[in-house]
């Protein structure tokens, strides 16, 4: 449990948000042309990183907007929050 600085609403309790998992997984443009292996990779396989991870969050009980977050999953420390479409921070 932690505070999240929503880029639209400011700092709110984590329980207002829902996590959409790993960020920057791009939906394939032509799913019908993928092999089963490639489709499984897109659909199911995850890095599930212990450490700094890029992930999507939704302010479900607030503005209901999606945004991205950089969080260390080993201590729940948030390093950066950025809007959808913005470039992920390098460090």
């Amino acid at each position: 449990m932690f505070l999240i600085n929503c880029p639209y609403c400011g700092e709110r309790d984590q329980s207002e948000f829902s996590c959409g998992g790993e960020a920057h997984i791009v939906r394939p443009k032509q799913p019908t042309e993928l092999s089963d292996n490639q489709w499984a990779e897109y659909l199911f396989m995850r890095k599930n990183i212990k450490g700094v991870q890029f992930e999507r969050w939704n302010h479900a009980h607030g503005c209901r907007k999606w945004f991205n977050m950089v969080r260390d999953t080993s201590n729940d420390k948030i390093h950066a929050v950025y809007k959808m479409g913005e470039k992920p921070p390098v460090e």
Partner: protein
Amino acid sequence: MKNKYSIFSLIKNAFSQHENWKQAWGDPEPKREYEAIIIGGGGHGLATAYYLAKKHNMRNIAVLEKGWIGGGNTGRNTTIIRSNYLWDASAGLYDHALKIWENLSQELNYNIMFSQRGVMNLAHNLQDVRDLKRRTHANRLNGIDAVWLNTNQVKEFCPIINTSPDIRYPVLGGTLQRRAGTARHDAVAWGYARGADEMGVDIIQNCEVKGIKRNGDQVEGVETSKGFIKTKKIGVVAAGHSSVIANMAGLKLPLESKPLQALVSEPVKPIIDTVVMSNAVHAYVSQSDKGELVIGAGTDAYISYTQRGSHDVVEGTLKAILELYPIFSRMKMLRQWGGIVDICPDASPIISKTNIKGLYFNCGWGTGGFKATPGSGDFFAHTIANDEPHKLNAAFNLNRFVSGDLVDEHGAAAVAH
């Protein structure tokens, strides 16, 4: 068996104030090479080593544990054992485990305190009633004992449940598996460790795996905090940290790791002699032999390796507990903790070979791995020894996420995952 535990050894040792008991397992330094290495010294890992040695005669093996054995999820779960799963594949897996549980204390010569006190699953709405009745029928077709209880029968079986129709989620009935129950979780790890050690397995604690060495698509060994160890077969049983090990081997798994919480109350006199689980309100409770209420809460809805868990999750569970059991309203909670569980998209485990030769994974047990410990170890040992799955764990392969042949226990397995 050397040092067999019995009433006579107990009396004999009483004369020396119990100060001369021999160590139950050794503390060896790792050898340079093993026939197989198991990563993870929890219940599943130790059981795997035990069955590799016992059934497949592989004695030159080691279990590597980064902390102390049984210190992860084996020591953090709510010790519930049941096999009332919906799908045939799951029924085969979990009931195989339950059958081993029934004789495990005898087999290991170690009292794991297995208690078949029954597990009751409550229904709180019409859909619950339909789902649970369907599951009861499926269980019985698979030879697993299950009965449907109406509200009065629920009250009769566990009188402290509030069955008033006026509560927010009234009890509309429930299912009961009488063969289900609980066991002492630490004793399971210790019993398997002692049994494996006796057959020559090296149990190496405080030995963290740092890397997996590959030569092309064949494993060659593991880098550890105690140096490099050569081996041709690696069985990974690292629960919440399975993805961490997979990443070392350049592999991705369909897993997400999340903290799952549990808590215990102050000890009181016997008040609840069974295990009651509720899917809809996500609360389950039993009472330990020490008298503490053992309460299982839910997972956090985001990936985390913090072994803590959020307060609002516990709060939600306790609200449900208090509505169902008003008698507990003035009890104090003593301890709360979290364990990191690795959850598969279909809420079923993976006991499988991988594309890398000699690398095997036993993971994805999510929120309910303890109950399967003996069966998981048995089948994983079979898979490692023969490089082929047993017919009862064949469905739990990694390839199911490619083929689409999932074992979808999500919401079907009698408790929310």
